[in-house]
């Protein structure tokens, strides 16, 4: 392999946070120099290290095209998909690579996402369809589809959880991606639920736990806007409260009036 010097601006120097509970100490950082080629991305660089330097380095990957959601990690303090990160911008200086924050680390850059998927299952994330004959599709307008479309893009990579102060504070907070998912079903004209969905998110674990700091919107690699979904669901809940207060008031005043 090519010898690298500190001055070499085409050198990729990766300082990786490692973890292996069977080792002593279990946590350490390790620096690797990687030879780069034009158009290379960070995932390719990590695979190269695994092949040529250290087969024990562990991380998840599958599609290498930013669609499967496997390879989220922290790079120089920013949460990214490794496969969507060109190494070009990282050359010359040392790049720090860490696992996705707030999730328990299993090994090196692999984190335990079970809580994420527990929250996912918690909102019953499947269409509860209105009745329809089995041989024809629901009619839906393009405008209605486009309304939901941004929320469908989510690849469940977990990045938004890793930047979310609310989730960092309280692991019971449902989290941006999951609330975006709830909104996706709420807005789907084919889904018969409305109150159920809103009830499910109407507490501090749900929409009221969010700090509306838009960190998730900024970090999401697929341009999903979870905070927008959260704000819209808050609006609906408030409207419900208002109308139910109002109707209670009405019926009360009617009763008073009829006395």
């Amino acid at each position, binding site marked *: 392999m090519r010898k690298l010097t500190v001055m070499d601006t085409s050198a990729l120097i990766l300082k990786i946070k490692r973890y292996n509970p069977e080792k002593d100490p279990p946590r350490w950082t390790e620096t690797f120099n990687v030879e780069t080629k034009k158009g290379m991305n960070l995932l390719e660089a990590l695979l190269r290290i695994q092949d040529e330097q250290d087969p024990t380095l562990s991380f998840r990957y599958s599609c290498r095209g930013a669609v499967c959601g496997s390879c989220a990690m922290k790079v120089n303090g920013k949460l990214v998909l490794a496969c969507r990160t060109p190494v070009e911008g990282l050359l010359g200086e040392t790049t720090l690579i860490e696992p996705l924050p707030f999730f328990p680390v299993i090994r090196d850059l692999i984190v335990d996402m079970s809580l994420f998927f527990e929250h996912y299952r918690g909102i019953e994330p499947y269409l509860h369809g209105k009745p329809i004959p*089995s041989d024809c599709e629901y009619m839906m307008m393009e405008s209605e589809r486009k309304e939901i479309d941004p929320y469908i893009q989510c690849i469940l990579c977990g990045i938004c959880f890793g930047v979310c102060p609310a989730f960092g504070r309280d692991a019971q907070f449902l989290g941006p991606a999951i609330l975006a998912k709830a909104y996706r079903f709420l807005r789907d004209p084919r889904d018969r639920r409305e109150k159920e969905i809103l009830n499910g998110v109407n507490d501090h674990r749900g929409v009221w736990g969010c700090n509306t700091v838009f960190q998730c919107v900024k970090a999401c690699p697929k341009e999903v806007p979870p905070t927008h979904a959260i704000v819209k669901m808050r609006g609906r809940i408030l409207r419900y409260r208002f109308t139910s207060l109002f109707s209670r008031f009405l019926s009360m005043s009617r009763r008073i009036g009829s006395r």
Partner: protein
Amino acid sequence: MEFLTHDILIIGGGLAGLRAAIEAQKAGRDVAILSKVHPLRSHSVAAQGGINSAFDNIPVPTNDSWENHSFDTIKGSDYLADQDAVEVMCREGIERVIEMEHWGTLFSRTEDGRIAQRPFGGSGFPRTCYAADRTSHNLLHVLYEQVVGLRIPVYEEWHALSLVVDEGQCIGVLAFPLFEERTVPIRAEATILATGGYGRIYLRSTNAIINTGKGCYLAYQVGVPLEDMEFVQFHPTSLFGTNILITEGARGEGGYLVNVKGERYMERHAPHLMELGPRDIVARATQREIDEGRGFEGQYVHLDLRHLGRGKIMDHLPGIRQIAMDFAGIDPILNPIPIQPAQHYSMGGIPTNVDGETPLPGLYAAGECACVSVHGANRLGGNSLLETLVFGARAGRKAASNVKRKKRESNPLAFQKQSEAFQSCLHELSSRQEGEPCFRLRDELKTLMTDQVGIFRRESDLLSAKEKIRELKERFGRIGLKQKNLDFNNEWIQYLELEGMLHVAEVITEGALTRKESRGSHFRTDYPDRDDEHWLRHTLAYKTTEGARLEYKEVTITNYPPKERTY
């Protein structure tokens, strides 16, 4: 020895595996899915363009029907598809796609609110249903949502090591959780392989990195033949560099293919359909342009979308735009996309009937790892997603109905023996720390396959490839591993995958060498014509100690006698 037991075990969490699981669970069986990645990370999530179904939602002068769809599929297959299977797919596909819509797939819509359809290569009608250009992301997430709703258990990040066979019956698998230090025997009355394609034995491939063809090898290893493996589809438009797919939908929407001289070269190769010619023809034309010096930098051509305008690109091809920007730094609204052909799809696989049954009782297969055969020598775009749903469901249903008929006690010894064999293999490998590392062999294999068993094939190349694969197999026997533990052992996984890759490559090469004709995706420069008299038949490859032994079987022809395939 501790066993896990299920009526039906499905290996693979892509579209085919999930659809099979849903069907089997709804039939009241105890079902589990096992996958080496979380199901949502399966390769299926990447398919972009769409799924074919003859809904006839788009007004054109004549009506579309499942019979038309069958005809296009059979013609596209260069008449190698089994016509009864194609008819099943095209007929039942309509139900399967509507069901996906009912489960929540967010298909793009026509003006009157129905599922939108676009033209795709090799079809006479706008028949491809789509959800912008992220169709399968949508489909896979929806199927997974159903799986969650039905509470079907998933062994996530488990690797299937081998099938366990006893008295001529598949009785389960030996598997291991990637993060644990143990192998686990799983007993199942029925095992369904839904392990996807083997694209990554090629250097340039549009497939996910995990698509190594291991599932095909699992079957091949226990004596099940592999069918029509020499038919490997090359896609004309993969992004130069990473080979990420640029969907055919981009041409369906009106994109042009242009060479360095500024010519729309498809005029010379398929004057009627132009860019919408079938994949094999467009891929060969594109490779030829590059080989004959009409490419850019000798390596790629341009896919030009600029004339479609910002609005159409943003509405119909937002994913493609994102890919071009993220992975090539190019905005297709402003600049043409550099593209080159790459391996894309595996037409061949584990032979099954229309109910997913393989020649081995107790073993089923569906999806890209199977060969029903509905794609024959060349798959039409939009047909493989359909295949995963139709035959996934059928395999699940058949497995469920077979299971209730008989319950047998399986033999724990068969599991025990295999488990011990794995332990000692790993032990031996790790005692050879100085042996050659896996990745070097893997990279040599990939380069070899792209260079010598690729789009254009000829005898001398194929012979040398065969020789080289034999040499690689020998060197494989001398591989050494640094780690001897089971958990997190990336080298060990690589080793297991590479073993399958070498065998699959050998089968492809042997099939390609022996088939002295050109049909669909299999193009021999030394035998450029189709030869129905000798070669209108399926290849079956059996594993022997000397390599692959080939046999042949008849193609099923129902209503569409073979004709010349012109576009």
